């Protein structure tokens, strides 16, 4: 393959396409990649993959992603990166790469394409199952790749089996209940400049599998000794792989320190690649096996009961020697070397299994926690299950005895700069649980989540009692592993659901008209609603004043199509509504409308709206815009789970019927020009009545419903005819100076009349009585919530009740949500009224606040403790260091006698 070029810290490096950046940097002679986060010590590559705690880089090209280990970045033409000291920086620019998601349902999912995973996949294929095989490496083979070996041909051939899907560069990040697996597939970074523009950079896989086979393999782990963090100290398997497979030639001599036979295998590889292996220091008293024999035969000096205690460095902090200790005589010798290869045993990757609660079990023979698990649904294979292969003698779980000074540089978590000293201090402070030690020392909390440091912590905790194992690892247990197994960019989780695709946008049939009229929109749930319609040069305040005056003195129109609408039919519809609403609906005459309030069983108001009886067995319910889905679900729950004997059918018709509210003293005159086939007079068409009519042959239903207190008509029309009707209204409305208004004006108008918005003027703790709406609670019938009104706490004094607040003309508007305190409470040091404990005594809060053109003053609705008994009381509203004042009053501010609505 052709060589490619990339830049790291402004230096040009050469690499083979697809090889890890760490290999190319080492080959280029770069041992010290960065300084550590807190102690500022030089650090280099120690590992081979996602376990790498040291060699973090910041990508400068492409997505500018941060905190990526150099061991997992595949070099590609055009790649530019720089070193990073622990803390990454997010790019300033918005992420432009594409991300997507996919779902897969499969017979068997195999995680890991090492020999164990491939073998398991082959068995599954033979059993006739469809197999999805995912692996986080660019090519299959697992450890074979590190050894530079080809796949056995039988396993290689299997990859083209028609029932097998093999996804490379795909990391399982979480295993969840019922064999649900999330995995991320990296699809373009490795192609560098050549990546197709439209290809999703990362694809998130959501997989459901009948069977899951975990063959996730293992990481080699380091050992704890003084100054164990210097560049030049590496995991032996990583060192041997970089030297033997990736052609790293910068090491002349090596010392190998080990607790298992892996150290011998790696020493041999180093030896065979031309590195002078000065010695293998094995903490065990003896070792046997083919690898030991081969090392002996190769002439590598082997020292049992010996280990590395400390290291030395040159002026740049790079390793130049090690201190060896004889574990029996305690004698020490110094040896110069430029590579220290460390084999501290294998740590099987138990993370995925533990995500669903499986506890790993300690195996002394392996010096490792294993998950040896076999059920029909889930099984483990390979190193995870304890199959370490070969003829290995048992490993030992070991660390040398270090004094207090040595412990200060004996690193456990290299990324967090947490040392044995820190751990001992934690134990000294009385912490015993590994979870507490983790939180005290921050071990295992970095980007690598303790992939190398977790087991070291367990080992150190075993040793804290004068080096004698006070506890076994089985007693201590592992850290808790939680998804994701590797970091996932937020952009990948978002996928394509970003910006305007992050949530559905719902628009009414009149939306385009509003846009053209220059409306400013507000989001109400998923709906886009016109907030106000400013004329050129108008502020919001100006526009709302003008719109309010038009509605109160002339004629104004609003698009109310977003109102939730539920069509309710059936022989028992009336009985059903009687149970749902606090007031009666079965007695409502056909063609009439009634306002209703519904409560949950706990007596708390839940939604409100006007329901019209369209026929004997037919009602149309309206709900708050935001409550439509919730209310329909509520109705269905009762019908399906409590009252199946009722014949009632509920259908959402929100988007079938468009509602246009025509409001103001001149509304009848204007509507009269549009509707010729019914009598609109107050006598013939009274308030809260509904009439069928036609406009230019279009059937409409007109209702005399007012959410403003003014004479008003709600015109209901098929969604598709709404725009025609709306345009016609505007043509005829010109002589009337017809004015469009939005939700802000609607709020001012309704608040002036004291009409509540459930969810704005309530906070989920109000009964109808708290809202001063006892008049709507039927005494004659049963309904949901009624029993709760008898509960002592809903009858108690001191409950927050809905009242009005009126301010003096010219005063500042109270912000919604502001706390209300008793008048002239003593002031705390912030200037706010306070009780003798220095706490502000609040007695309620403001739920809605507007400026009223009609009243000529700002006003508000508020929930105030015992408010209905406090009419006329002046209260304080502290806003920062200012204190506003207002007077408690009835929540109906204008036209208490309802003279205007006819």
């Amino acid at each position, binding site marked *: 393959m052709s060589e490619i070029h990339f830049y790291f810290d402004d230096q040009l490096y050469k690499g083979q396409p697809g090889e890890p950046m760490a290999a190319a940097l080492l080959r280029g002679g770069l041992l010290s990649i960065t300084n550590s986060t807190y102690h500022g010590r030089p650090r280099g590559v120690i590992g081979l993959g996602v376990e790498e705690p040291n060699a973090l880089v910041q990508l400068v090209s492409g997505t500018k992603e941060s905190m990526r280990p150099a061991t997992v970045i595949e070099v590609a033409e055009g790649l530019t990166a720089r070193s990073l000291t622990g803390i990454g920086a997010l790019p300033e620019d918005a992420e432009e790469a594409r991300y997507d998601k996919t779902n897969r349902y499969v017979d068997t999912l195999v995680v890991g394409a090492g020999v164990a995973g491939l073998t398991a996949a082959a068995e599954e294929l033979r059993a006739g199952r469809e197999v999805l095989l995912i692996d986080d490496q660019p090519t299959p083979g697992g450890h074979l790749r590190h050894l530079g070996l080809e796949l056995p041909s039988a396993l290689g051939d299997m990859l083209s089996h028609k029932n097998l899907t093999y996804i490379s560069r795909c990391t399982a990040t979480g295993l969840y*209940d*019922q064999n649900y697996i999330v995995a991320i597939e990296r699809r373009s970074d490795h192609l560098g400049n050549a990546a197709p523009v439209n290809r999703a950079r990362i694809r998130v896989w959501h997989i459901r599998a009948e069977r899951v086979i975990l063959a996730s393999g293992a990481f080699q782990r380091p050992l704890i000794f003084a100054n164990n963090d210097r560049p030049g100290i590496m995991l032996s398997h990583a060192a041997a792989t970089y030297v033997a497979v990736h052609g790293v030639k910068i090491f002349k001599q090596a010392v190998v320190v080990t607790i298992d036979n892996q150290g011998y295998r790696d020493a041999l590889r180093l030896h065979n690649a031309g590195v002078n292996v000065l010695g293998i220091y094995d903490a065990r008293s003896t070792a046997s096996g083919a690898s030991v024999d081969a090392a002996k035969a190769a002439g590598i000096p082997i020292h049992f009961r010996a280990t590395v205690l400390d290291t030395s460095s040159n002026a740049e902090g790079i390793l130049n020697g090690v201190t060896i200790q004889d574990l029996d005589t305690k004698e020490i010798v110094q040896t110069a070397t430029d590579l220290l290869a460390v084999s501290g045993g294998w740590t099987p990757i138990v993370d995925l299994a533990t995500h669903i*609660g499986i506890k790993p079990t300690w195996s002394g023979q392996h010096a490792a926690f294993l998950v040896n698990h076999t059920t029909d649904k889930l099984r483990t294979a390979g190193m995870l299950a304890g199959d370490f292969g070969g003829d290995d003698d048992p490993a030992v779980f070991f660390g040398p005895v270090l004094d207090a000074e040595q412990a200060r540089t004996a690193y456990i978590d290299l990324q967090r700069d947490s040392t044995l000293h820190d751990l001992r201090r934690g134990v000294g402070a009385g912490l015993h649980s590994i979870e507490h030690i983790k939180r005290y020392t921050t071990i295992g909390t970095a980007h690598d989540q303790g992939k190398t440091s977790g087991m070291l912590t367990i080992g150190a905790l075993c040793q804290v009692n004068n080096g004698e194992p006070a506890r076994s690892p089985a007693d201590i247990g592992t850290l808790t592993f939680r998804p994701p197994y590797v970091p996932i960019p937020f952009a990948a989780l978002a996928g394509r659901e970003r910006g305007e695709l992050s949530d559905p946008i719902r628009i009414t049939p009149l939306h385009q008209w509003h846009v053209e009229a220059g409306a400013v929109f507000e989001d109400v749930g998923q709906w886009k609603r016109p907030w106000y319609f400013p004329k050129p040069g108008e502020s919001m305040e100006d526009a709302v004043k003008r719109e309010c005056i038009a509605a109160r003195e002339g004629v104004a129109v609003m698009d109310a199509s977003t109102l939730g609408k539920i069509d309710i039919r059936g022989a028992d519809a009336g009985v059903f509504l009687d149970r749902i609403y606090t007031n009666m609906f079965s007695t409502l005459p056909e063609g009439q409308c009634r306002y209703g309030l519904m409560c949950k*069983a706990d007596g708390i108001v839940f939604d409100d709206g006007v329901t019209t009886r369209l026929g004997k067995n037919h009602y149309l319910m309206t709900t708050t815009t935001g409550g439509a889905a919730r209310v329909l679900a509520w109705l269905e729950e009762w019908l399906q789970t*409590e009252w199946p004997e009722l014949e009632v059918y509920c259908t959402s018709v929100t988007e079938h019927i468009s509602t246009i509210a025509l409001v103001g003293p001149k509304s009848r005159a204007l509507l009269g020009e549009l509707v010729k086939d019914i009598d609109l007079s107050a006598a013939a068409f009274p308030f809260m009545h509904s009439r069928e009519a036609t406009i230019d042959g279009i059937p409409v239903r007109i209702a005399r419903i007012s959410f403003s207190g003014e004479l008003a008509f709600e015109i209901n029309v098929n969604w598709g005819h709404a725009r025609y009707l709306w345009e016609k209204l505007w043509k005829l409305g010109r002589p009337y100076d017809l004015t469009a208004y939005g939700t802000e004006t609607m709020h001012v108008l309704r608040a002036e009349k004291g009409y509540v918005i459930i969810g704005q003027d309530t906070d989920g703790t109000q009964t109808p009585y708290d809202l001063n709406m006892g008049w709507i609670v039927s005494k004659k019938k*049963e309904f949901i919530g009624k029993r*709760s009104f008898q509960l002592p706490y809903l009858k108690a004094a001191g409950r927050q009740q809905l009242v009005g607040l009126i301010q003096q003309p010219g005063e500042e508007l109270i912000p919604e949500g502001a706390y209300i305190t008793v008048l002239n409470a003593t002031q705390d040091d912030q200037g706010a009224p306070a009780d003798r404990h220095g706490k502000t005594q609040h007695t309620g809060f403001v739920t809605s606040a507007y400026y009223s053109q009609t009243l000529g003053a700002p006003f508000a609705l508020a929930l105030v403790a015992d408010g209905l008994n406090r009419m006329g009381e002046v209260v304080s509203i502290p806003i920062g260091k200012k204190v506003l004042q207002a007077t408690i009053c009835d929540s109906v501010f204008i036209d208490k006698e309802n003279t205007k609505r006819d």
Partner: protein
Amino acid sequence: MLYIPCPHCGLRNENEFHYGAEAGVGYPDPNTLSDSEWAKYLHIRANPKGWLAERWVHFAGCGRWFNLWRNTVTHEIGPVYLPFTKQPKAPAPETHRDGKEGSIQ
């Protein structure tokens, strides 16, 4: 994410469903209950460690309510049954994933 067998639509992901707590708690006659009995109906539901018969609704699917047995420790799902049908027996105490009786330690 649970994989829930809707009796009408088949196996679907949990995020298509809403949870309805303990099954089999009928709406009582409110007027025969003391305040504390009524409060218990309102606010207290079983939440055992182990098998629980519970209500679910396939909100983003068919919209229908149904009941199922679920093990609150292992999330294993047992028999599924419709409202107003006979409640099947609770499954036998489970063997945990580790092969041990009982719960996650």
